[in-house]
């Protein structure tokens, strides 16, 4: 059995909201294999965003364990988590989250900055990543000078530049029209196929979700259904 890209074992997440406890996740176990292409699907309030934050090491579970590449992330310090996140996970957000006044290439290079990579190598690798998403001619453009689809592809290049094992995409097409959304999806799929990076989409849109090889349906803080096309193989 190979080591999974990331694995959550019986994780819960409880928020206290004005004295009341909100159980966002109530015991979820999920294993994402290396190179897998999957979707976490659910309506808003289902806990899918919380699950994504936990898988992305942006948040800590109230109980349960998360392991990344076989390493227990739940016992790590904030700094160790930041390093692990930097080295193993790439994020694509619904609202792109680019630094507006910064050139595309510098936006893409940002994860490498926090990895301590030298300036020249950062630029080279960022340029390669932009080429890979088809934006080789937009390197010097500021984020605000790019269209929505282009911005999201810059964000994908940024998620990719650190060569992570897992790419987490939170509603990556949510702010895009159907055509550009389709282009973004094709980019993600191509990278998954060509580079072997595991891609996990978080979405409420079943049409998007069915493009992946596996749909994990989340409802009321629990995994309701986990459908895999793996049987076909």
């Amino acid at each position, binding site marked *: 059995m190979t080591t999974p890209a990331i694995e959550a074992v019986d994780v819960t997440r409880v928020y206290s909201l004005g004295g009341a406890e909100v159980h966002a996740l109530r015991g979820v176990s999920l294993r994402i294999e290396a190179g897998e292409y999957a979707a976490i699907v659910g309506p808003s309030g289902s806990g899918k965003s919380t699950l994504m*934050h936990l898988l*992305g090491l*942006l*948040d800590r579970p109230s109980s349960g364990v998360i392991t990344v590449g076989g390493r227990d992330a739940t016992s790590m310090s*904030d*700094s160790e988590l*930041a*390093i692990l*996140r*930097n*080295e193993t996970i790439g*994020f694509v*957000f619904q609202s792109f*989250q680019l*630094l507006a*006044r*910064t050139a595309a290439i510098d936006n893409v290079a*940002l*994860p490498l*900055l*926090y*990895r*301590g990579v030298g*300036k020249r190598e950062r630029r080279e690798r960022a340029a390669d990543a932009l080429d890979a998403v088809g934006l080789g001619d937009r390197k010097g453009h500021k984020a605000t000078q790019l269209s929505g689809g282009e911005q999201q592809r810059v964000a994908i290049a*940024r998620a990719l530049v*650190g060569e992570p094992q897992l790419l987490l995409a939170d509603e990556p097409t949510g702010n895009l029209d159907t055509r550009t959304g389709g282009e973004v999806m094709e980019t993600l799929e191509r990278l998954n196929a060509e580079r072997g990076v595991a891609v996990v989409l978080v979405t409420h849109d079943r049409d998007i979700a069915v493009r992946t090889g596996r749909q994990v349906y989340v409802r009321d803080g629990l995994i309701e259904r986990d459908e895999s096309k793996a049987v076909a193989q």
Partner: protein
Amino acid sequence: MRLAEAFRVALDALRANRLRSLLTMLGVIIGVAAVVVLVAIGSGAKQEVEAQVEGLGSNIIFVVPGSVEFGSAPSISRLQLEDVDYLGRVIGNPDAVATTVSSGETVSVGSAEVFSTIAGTNENVPNVFTRPVARGEYLTATDVDTRRRVAVLGSAVAKSLFGEVEPLGRQITIAGVRFRVIGVFEEVGSTFGVSRDDEIHIPVTTAQQLFGVDRIDAIAVKAPTIDDVEPLRKEILAALAEEYPDEEFSAVTQSQILGTLGQILGLLTLVLAAIAAISLLVGGVGVSNIMLVSVRERTREIGLRKALGARRRDITVQFLIEAVLLTTVGGVIGMAIGIGASLLADTFTPLPAVIAWWSPVLAFTVSVAVGVFFGVIPARRAGKLEPVEALRSE
């Protein structure tokens, strides 16, 4: 992240908000400039006063009746002309003892009339004080002994009485009595705001008769070297105590005068600097305030940076560098403005301004420290933000 990188990131953030950065710096700029200028003016005043005291001559001891301590009762003691000879004998050098009795009198030549300080002195003034005569001669022993009506004019009073005409050998009228001008002083400027170029020197004996007094105001003794000043001062006091057991006299040296004045002016400089330092502090609070706003505004950026692998320390350092950059750049600009303004004040106003080397250095150091001190709270707040919550904020 390397420090140099953090610097670049911070600099970019400040550049992105040029106007705000400049306005934030303004508090620090004004504070530092104020410190530099006020200290320069304080130091200038001190140096000017010192130059004036030293300009009188060197190694001089002033003997006056009574005590010169603050709050002492007015003196009933008196110095008389005989005391000049007595002190001359005591120190074994009669030529090194000068005296003065002065009064303000009206002086006229034809229709020109001025009010001037008339100083009755003896022939030893040039031996004791730095008081060169430009033309003619100073008073002689014979002038004093025979109570001659001769006068030596200050350069300013000579000009106001005679204009371009040569005063030597001409007559002037002092308080209704006619005097012959035998000399004109070189220009020497003023001491403590009193112009010494407005003085007229006449023989002390003539002056006592003219003023209707038999006292003298003060005796000035010149010591041969700086090392002789203090022993000589004690010798003079002892001699006066022996001659007048029931009376009190004071002997004050130039360095004592300088010490007292230096203390007063040093304190003044310090007070000025402290007032300016308060404005620097207020500038620091402004930096803190703006940095807090900036952290709030850029919460999403902070969240993103954290998601991409920035550690708490990376974020804290970035914001701290921003704050320190603001105050440091502000400090440098303030220093430049302060030095410039001091030089302008020195050149174009009567205020003497001297830039003490320590004041720009101190102001700069303090402004950097202010940046660190007031930057820490916003920077720590930025570093502590949780990535999930930071990303969620709109």
